[in-house]
């Protein structure tokens, strides 16, 4: 499998990364290199092997349903670029 320049641009857009046309070409070559490695791995017969969800053979630890985090609004708002009325302000977004 190899990627087209168009697919590289789409992936960049989804990841919100701006790339130039030259960069897109280099990136395509890098990604295609990775795909070759993946192809090698996919050639391995994995029938009967359970897909691995995590590198560690452990299960998720759980916490009790208790409110343990105090209000940190003042400290968090203080490091934000722009705030008003207790809200974080961001460039207007309406879908």
């Amino acid at each position, binding site marked *: 499998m190899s990627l087209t320049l168009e697919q590289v641009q789409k992936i960049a857009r989804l990841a919100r990364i701006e790339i130039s046309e030259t960069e897109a070409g280099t990136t395509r070559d890098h990604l295609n290199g990775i795909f070759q490695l993946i192809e090698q791995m996919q050639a391995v017969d994995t029938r009967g092997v359970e897909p691995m*969800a*995590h590198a560690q053979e452990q299960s998720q*630890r759980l916490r009790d349903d208790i*409110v343990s*985090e105090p209000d*940190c*609004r003042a400290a968090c*708002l203080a490091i934000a670029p722009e705030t008003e009325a207790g809200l974080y302000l961001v460039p207007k*977004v309406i879908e």
Partner: protein
Amino acid sequence: MKWEVVIGIETHAQLATVSKIFSGAATAFGAEPNTQASVVDLALPGVLPVLNRKAVDCAIRFGLAVGAKVAEKSVFARKNYFYPDLPKGYQISQFELPVVQGGGLTVQVGGGDAAYEKTIRLTRAHLEEDAGKSLHEDFHGKSGIDLNRAGTPLLEIVSEPDMRSSDEAVAYARALHGLVRWIGICDGNMQEGSFRCDANVSVRPVGQAAFGTRREIKNLNSFRFLKEAIDYEVQWQINEIEEGRAIAQATVLFDPDRGETRMMRSKEDAHDYRYFPDPDLLPLVIGADWLERVRGELPELPQQKRERFQRELGLSAYDAATLTASQEVAAYFEATVAVAGAAQAKPCANWVMVDLAARLNKEGRDIANAPVQPAQLGGLIQRIADNTLSNNIAKKVFEALWNGEGATADAVIEQQGLRQITDSGAIEALVDEVLAANPGNVAEFRAGKEKAFNALVGQVMKAAKGKANPQQVNALLKKKLAG
């Protein structure tokens, strides 16, 4: 052309935990903006999610209640998209291995003779986190972000496309809403967004096996809007197809003011979420012992109670369904029957569903705060059963109990002299009096006017101040007029 409607519903139920799914911040509704957003919810660098046990408990309860498979092992995944109310740039959700798999919900559709039962299959239910809220009011051309809701635990419940009308969709949504409240996993407050529905709607010619192209209606937060939105959408899709235009897959929003759905995004703009297992979270393992403990804590479920009401108390499917709409209603009804006796189950059902419900509705009260207790209502129904009260007078006694004029029906009957007159000698005297005083009605009845009979009954009841036993009055009047 005859069209068939196909509907599937996705529901987001906020789980009844006090803290968030992956952090120890509070989940209370209506707090000052951003006062319940911890560093985990804000996605500051270096923070890690730790799963809330109670949220998993809720998912297990739901899975068991709908007869689904509760996965021994399920996996959290990252759903990637960019929006300011999602600080991490991804939502932690479940994708390939959800915690609840399959199951079904049996619902009552419609009422009266047209009512029928249908089982809607569930695809899955998975745990995930809610996003924050964007406020688009005027902040100098900017949007305001409140992250209090970010990280609130959600159970997303996905149905199969098994519904064939907006009525079935509403019946399903209502039953699901009733169930999540019944088993205590969600407060069901739709105004506050605790229970939100998305409807996937398509149409196809009757008899066609393949589904038509669907459009998804987002964020319907009332049963009325769910019905209106689906009805509008179905008509719109049929018109489009009949005018030769194909339906394009899209996400739409319902505008309740205009009663229309309108396009939010087309398939070309559809999100590409690039799910992958979240490396910050290990697989969730639910052992048999955990499952059995939750099973032991589950109350009798609405479906089981409904069947028992029909089997043991002889109620109709409709009555049984109405009386199991919530734990509170069911408990009230059962406590009433416990006093009045199982033989009076049907009158008990009628009093709870009609008289009590109407009175509660009028005052905007919950059944849990009804001024008339089940024991009082049960006592009242006993007095109707043993002929101490006619139905009409019973309504007066009910009103008196409601207003606190007596502690029991018996006390009200004694204080206000409402005992029904069943002494046939006394009733006969009243009947004779009325017949003598109304020769006109008597003549009319004998000439074949049935209405005149009712007028005479009315006169006797009036003379008895409403207290004469109506059946006895009828029988005696008939006998006298015939003789």
